[in-house]
Each structure stands twice: as structure tokens, then as C-alpha cells.
């Protein structure tokens, strides 16, 4: 026993090293479990307030493009007002509430931390649980997609941007609705990879890829990007292409979080289907 203690005392540094290393790696690979813990709330809160402070300074440097985007949005909204329409028949403006049920609500949020140069990039927003944000909500900018909420505290949230190895977006060709998957392979933040394009789809440079609406995260029809260049594979069953993202991830300042008001209903339906399978 004495020898054992002596041994442990002499070699404690190896054990300490192993313990710390295993602890870090366990946290790294169980990130999703950790993200719901109380410690996470505290650390997100601290990081959030520091990053918030720094972004409130750097915000001033991006006022010009932000104003331009706001002006564009204003113009778009004005053109949607009833005054902007020629009223030939008042009946055409009849709104049926049972037919048009509100499905999505948008919460505007400020980007307080963002990166594009890592292999796995995350964005921090200044909205959190208190503002009604939940995990897995989609984040968009105008009609372009940005990412998905992966971690929350009371006033902040982390968004996994499309520039992440774990991000896989289900998209489709705008012209013929053919489904494809979009991933990001690292490197340049402006281009990503389009995987699994069926052989019979004729690809042209500049084809628009939009969200398919198959995942529960984004509604259908948001712009992901346009085809940059493509390769026709000879021996495989699918062709590949690179996509130029419509979103400029390096200049994000204000984004919108999508709140899917029918998400619970969709999930319930999915779960009931799954449980009936077994």
C-alpha cells in the first residue's frame, strides 16, 4: 500500500495530465450534452457580455452597409403596402384567416461575434431564451440563410453557421426542384460544395439553389446560392458542383431568428409516426 502511494506521488503528474486531457476531450465530443448544463449558461453569459461590448464598438464601422440593407428592406415593405397596389377589385385583397395561418415569426437579432476563418464557425447573437429563442431554430438574413441555433443562455445564443463541418443543408434547384445537399468543405468562406446532384439534371453556371423545406429548420424557397462551377463525374452516379453562397458571412450584422409556430405540431406528428413504426 505504501508503495502504491509512493508510486502515485511520484507519477501524479501523468495522472493529472491524463485526467485533464480526458476531461477536455469528453467535453469536446459531448458538446451537445454540455450545452444544456448550468455551467454553459454562466460561461455563455460572461462571453456574451464581453463580446457584446466589443461589437457595440465595431458596430459603428458597419453602419453604412447596414443602412443600405435597411433602406432596401424599407423599399420592399413599402411596395407591399396596400397603397402600392392598383385596386381594380377590392375583393382581391380579402384575407381569409383560416386559409393563411401564421407559420413563422421573425425576431431580429444583432450579431455580436462571428468568424469565417475556422473550420467550424459559430455566430453569437444578442437574443436568448428570454426572447423566446430555442435550440434548432433557423437563422436567416433577409431571404438568405445563415445557420441554426445550437446553444442558448438567457440573453445570448450561439448559431452554427453554414461554415461548419456539422452543417448540412437540404436544398434544391430552383428551376426543376431537384434535391441536393449543400456542405462547406473549409477554406474559402464564399463557396461551398453541392453534393449528390443526380446525373440527369443539367447544370448551368449561375443556377440558383434554394432551401427545399424538407428539414424543419428553414421554410422552402430561401436563397442559398448560385452554382459556381461543376464537374461531370464519369464513373459515379452523382455530379458535384461548387456553390457561391448568397450570404456574405463575413459582413453579418443584423439577422433574423425564425420562430416556427407550428414546430411542435410537426414534431408531434413525426414522433407519433416514429413510435407507430416500432
Amino acid at each position: 500500500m505504501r508503495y502504491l502511494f509512493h508510486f502515485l506521488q511520484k507519477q501524479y503528474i501523468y495522472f493529472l495530465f491524463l485526467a485533464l486531457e480526458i476531461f477536455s476531450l469528453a467535453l469536446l465530443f459531448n458538446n451537445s450534452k454540455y450545452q444544456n448544463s448550468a455551467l454553459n449558461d454562466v460561461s455563455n453569459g460572461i462571453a456574451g457580455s464581453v463580446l457584446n461590448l466589443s461589437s457595440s464598438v465595431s458596430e459603428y464601422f458597419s453602419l453604412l452597409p447596414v443602412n443600405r440593407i435597411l433602406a432596401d428592406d424599407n423599399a420592399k415593405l413599402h411596395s407591399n403596402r396596400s397603397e402600392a397596389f392598383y385596386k381594380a377589385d377590392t375583393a382581391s385583397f380579402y384575407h381569409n384567416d383560416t386559409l393563411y395561418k401564421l407559420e413563422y415569426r421573425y425576431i431580429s437579432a444583432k450579431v455580436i461575434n462571428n468568424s469565417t476563418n475556422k473550420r467550424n464557425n459559430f455566430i453569437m447573437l444578442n437574443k436568448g431564451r428570454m426572447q423566446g429563442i430555442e435550440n434548432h431554430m433557423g437563422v436567416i438574413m433577409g431571404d438568405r440563410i445563415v445557420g441554426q441555433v445550437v446553444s442558448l443562455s438567457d440573453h445570448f445564443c450561439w448559431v452554427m453557421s453554414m461554415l461548419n463541418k456539422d452543417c448540412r443543408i437540404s436544398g434544391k434547384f430552383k428551376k426543376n426542384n431537384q434535391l441536393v445537399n449543400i456542405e462547406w468543405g473549409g477554406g474559402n468562406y464564399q463557396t461551398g460544395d453541392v453534393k449528390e446532384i443526380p446525373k440527369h439534371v443539367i447544370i448551368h453556371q449561375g443556377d440558383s439553389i434554394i432551401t427545399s423545406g424538407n428539414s424543419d429548420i428553414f421554410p422552402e424557397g430561401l436563397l442559398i446560392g448560385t452554382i459556381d462551377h461543376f464537374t461531370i463525374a464519369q464513373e459515379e452516379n452523382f455530379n458535384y458542383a461548387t456553390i457561391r453562397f448568397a450570404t456574405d458571412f463575413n459582413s453579418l450584422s443584423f439577422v433574423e431568428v425564425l420562430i416556427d409556430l407550428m414546430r411542435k405540431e410537426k414534431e408531434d406528428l413525426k414522433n407519433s409516426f416514429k413510435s407507430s413504426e416500432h
Partner: protein
Amino acid sequence: MTLIFLRNIGRFIFLILFQVLILNNIQFSGYVNPYFYIYFILLLPFETPPWLLLFSAFILGMSLDTFTNTIGLNAAACVLIAFIRPFVIRMISTGTEFMIGHSPSLRNQGVKWFAYYSIILVLVHHFALFFLEIFRFNELFQTILRVLLSSLFTLLMIFIAEYLSDTAKK
């Protein structure tokens, strides 16, 4: 003793903020992400007990991870270099006595010694970090390129910092 302690805590906070607020925001290319904050581990005094070395490296890595939502990633890489630091020092030491309370520096240990020391630790750290981050081998070439380019920039910053502190002391 207290002075050394306070100076290291100050350096800790400064390097974390510098990394988070400035270096992480620099968009150079997808292949260059300097991680200058490990300068803190390089500069801990020679006689720091190994357990303190490991713990301070762990806390350093964790603090940075909090700001980048990569819990455990930087911590694992930092603990690794804190663990090998004593071995590296023993391996490359030239036999001259290290003074109590002194940190490894370009001025006291010489260019060659300091170059070996920082190159080994920075390369090990960046290798561990980038490979843990991607955790697959099908982007092997890109990842190695990222490791080498980023290490180059980190080392460049470390040497600039050493020369600056050297001239400040004179």
C-alpha cells in the same frame, strides 16, 4: 513572488482578450488562424510546478473555448503542450543554470534555444488543435497546410513580442 504571480495573471487576461477581440476577427484566409494566446504557457517561469502548469494551461484553454463555443478544444491542446513543456526544456537545455523567477526568453536563453523551444510547442499545439477541430483525415492536406501556415504566423508574433520586450528592457 507576488509580482510574478500578478504579472502572469495580467498577461493571461491580456492574451485572452487580444486573441478573442482581435486575432479571431482577422480574416486573412481560411488557412491562417494564429493562436498567439499560448505565449502565456511559453512564458511561465521555469520553476513553475508541473501541476500548476497543467492547471493554468487548462484554464487558459477553457477561457478561450468559452468565447468561441468550442468547449474542450483549446483546453485539450493547451494541456498537451503544458505537459510536454518540462520535457522539451530538459531536452534542449544547454546546461546553463536557469535563474529562479525567470521565464524562458529570447534574451536570456539565446535565439537558438528559444527558437527550438517555441517551434516545438507551437507546432504540437497547432497540430493537436486543428486535427481535433476537424477530427477526420479526408482533409489531411488542407489541415496540414493550415497547421503550418498558422504556426508560422503564431511564431512570427511570438518573436516580435520577444524583440519588443527585449528592447523595452534595455
